[in-house]
């Protein structure tokens, strides 16, 4: 059953991905004005406009370009960066680990904060700790990540003449330094997600804790931990997982600013530079990667539903 459910979800993901590829491929071509003319004027990607059009494959009909691009993309060929002249896939392979690590760490930090705090707030509803936690959550939602990052960089420099490590520290070169470098930006990214997840965890858990079966569990004399975690949290967590899935694009969006502030050479920063450089193969490649990641994460979230709640089936 589970296998069939996953297969069906996978099938549904394919058209989503295809539609996304059409958008990713079309958008750069909808920019007003002759983008190629601008590229030629600003950069030195080719000797003349005809050469640049040919280089970008723009000298052929649109549908032919799309099919060719998609065919290559499926085979793992996203073209060559006009800026660095390296294969886009190679560039992404070099930068993806940085962004992936940042996003994963941010998600992990968000979960590590949100779940226990959300459970605590729900279990101690209307207590001082509940109010404190809820206030902090609103603060976490309200404070923009870039502002928090700015404060965390500038204030220690003013007070103690210290700032976080600049330049990227490779894990292989200095594991501790690397973790120390990633931790702060990941925490900043994770805070906003943690606030949203915590509020939802609390709300859903409160709803579940009022269900009859929970009252039965209390009546049976089960320990609080067992009632709240085993009977309550597992049933409350499905919307939280959904939210976690939707948080990923937000976290990925946040990495553009955070990678710039902390000097991390990730995919988001690469995309930002590519836009400035009008490096269209890279823009398309990165967007395709982001779209594919979001589709994959949503697929994983759907799969997780089935694991968390065996009643969910297609």
């Amino acid at each position, binding site marked *: 059953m589970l296998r069939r459910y996953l297969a069906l979800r996978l099938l549904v993901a394919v058209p989503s991905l295809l539609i996304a590829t059409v958008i990713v491929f079309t958008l750069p071509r909808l920019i007003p004005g002759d983008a190629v003319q601008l590229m030629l*004027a*600003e*950069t030195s990607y080719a000797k003349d406009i005809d050469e640049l059009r040919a280089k970008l494959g723009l000298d052929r009909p649109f549908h032919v370009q799309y099919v060719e691009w998609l065919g290559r993309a499926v085979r793992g060929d996203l073209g060559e960066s006009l*800026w660095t002249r390296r294969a886009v896939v190679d560039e992404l392979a070099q930068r993806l680990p940085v962004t992936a690590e940042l996003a994963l760490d941010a998600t992990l930090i968000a979960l590590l904060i949100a779940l226990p705090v959300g459970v605590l707030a729900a279990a101690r509803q209307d207590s001082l700790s509940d109010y404190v936690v809820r206030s902090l959550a609103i603060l976490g939602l309200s404070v923009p990540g870039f502002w928090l990052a700015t404060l965390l960089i*500038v204030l220690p*420099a003013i007070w103690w003449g210290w700032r976080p490590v600049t330049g*990227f520290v490779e894990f292989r070169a200095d594991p501790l330094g690397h973790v120390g470098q990633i931790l702060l930006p990941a925490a900043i990214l994770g805070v906003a997600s943690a606030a949203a997840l915590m509020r939802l965890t609390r709300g859903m858990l409160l709803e579940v804790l009022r269900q009859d079966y929970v009252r039965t569990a209390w009546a049976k004399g089960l320990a609080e931990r067992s009632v709240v975690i085993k009977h309550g949290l597992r049933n409350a967590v499905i919307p939280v997982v959904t939210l976690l899935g939707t948080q990923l694009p937000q976290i990925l969006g946040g990495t553009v600013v955070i*990678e710039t*502030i902390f*000097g991390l050479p990730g995919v988001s920063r690469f995309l930002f530079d590519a836009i400035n450089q009008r490096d269209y193969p890279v823009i398309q490649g990165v967007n395709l990667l982001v779209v594919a990641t979001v589709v994959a994460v949503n697929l994983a979230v759907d799969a997780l539903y089935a694991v968390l709640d065996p009643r969910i089936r297609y």
Partner: protein
Amino acid sequence: MSLTRREVLTLGGATLAAATLVPRAARAQTPRRGGTLTLRLWDPPTWDPDLTISYKTHIAHTFTHSRLVRHRAGPGVAPGTFPVEGDLAESWTQPSETTYVFKLRRGVRWHPKPPVNGRELTAEDVKYTVERFLTLKGNANAYMLRSVDKVEALDRYTVKFTLKEPFAWFLDMLANPMAVAIIARECVEKFGDLKPAEAVIGTGPWMLEGYRPNVGYTFVRHPAYFVAGLPNIDRIEVTVDEDNASRTASFLAGKYDLGWENPGIISRSDWLQIKDTLKSKRPGLRTLEFPGNVGNHLSMRVDQRPFSDLRVRQAMSMALDRKALIDALYEGVGVANPPGVPVALKEWSLPVDQLGEGAKNFGYDPKEARRLLAAAGYPNGFSGSVCWATYGSTIVVDHAQLVVKYLKDIGIDAKLDTKEYGAYISTCFYGKFDSMAFGPQTPFLDGDNYLFGYYYPGEMKNQSHVNDPVVADMIVRQRRTLDPAKRREIIQDIQRYLARQVYYTTSVGQVYTAVWDGALKNYGPNLGYDYGGRLLAAWLER
């Protein structure tokens, strides 16, 4: 506060005083080898110096590449002056007005990297470089050597340039880091062009060791650099840091040895915010102030109505309250630039109060401006558009909005037509607009670029579409006048003439605050991209 002529002279005097005092102190110290200097620079859009006009590339090449001649650097050189001295050229002669013969130093070695592997530089390398510079499609700076008719390698160490016509600024062009970093043919042949970082191979004092986009790069000492004992500094660690808060924090924490903006400065607003903190955090820090050479102006289609009417142009110039602009934009410390050559180039620029009859056009007089507009047939003003780009700078945004506000005060309804940076550079920056355009201009180091580029008919940067035979003739004359004193007279005449014609509404510019770590000795800040040149003989005492 705007700088008066007296203040500019005082500034210059202070600079000169510093310049003359410091070298003695520096000479009294013994240069020290070693150490690592840390800088904030930029990701070059490409590493090929001939395929970009970006300072981000040209600055990086001042560390790794040599030129035939260069601008002398060090604490003895007053900012805003650019004496020329030999770099690869040991000496040169000028047998005629159109001929230059350069004798190259012997034993100059390329960096010990493939494909050149440290071979000796020859006259053929210079010839190849100049010919590539002149003929490479996509080299927007090729105009700087447009006067060159041919270049010949007379023997292994002698290069002869023949010009099409006398060009008094020829050596200045060769010395400018925007042009002619000497490259090796083998590199171009191996890599197809010089875009990849692996192709950054020169004869300069440092070698590019590693480059990681968005992170930074490292320069290490060239062991066979042609000046014995130089450079003193072993390593230069460059951080690419695109966030101002991050840069500020890094500087406060002592992670950058020079100010983080080009050319080793800190902007006035940032400086005012951190200078008190720096007194305790970095007490040895040294500073020097001098006018910046980035001019800001409003260009307009003077080949069309209403801007073809002199009275309209005069009115627009009189509409600007330059003192108020300096107060608003630069915390009260800035310069009101004359037309043509900005105040920063002190050897060539004529201050506003010496512009003669045209000086009145640079005073704030909205009443007279309205009268002139009415006399020109626009009693109710007129409307137009101002093409511009933000440059990602709040100062540029404020500047554009204030200029538009002042125009509005006299009845000119100028709508800001905001363009994305790239679109702006490829269109309005090169005069492709219908009404007006506004923005900062390229910071040149010579008078000619400011005059020939912006005022000679048909030039790419002639944004206002000026076609005035009088000014064109004077510009050509100054180009052909080799005697600097006589050339200065012509340039001053040009500026007086331009002040009367106001083909551009010239606005105000910054006074730079150059900042460097106290441990960096024998360093003298200046305008221009030549970071490598200014650091060549400097050393670190930490």
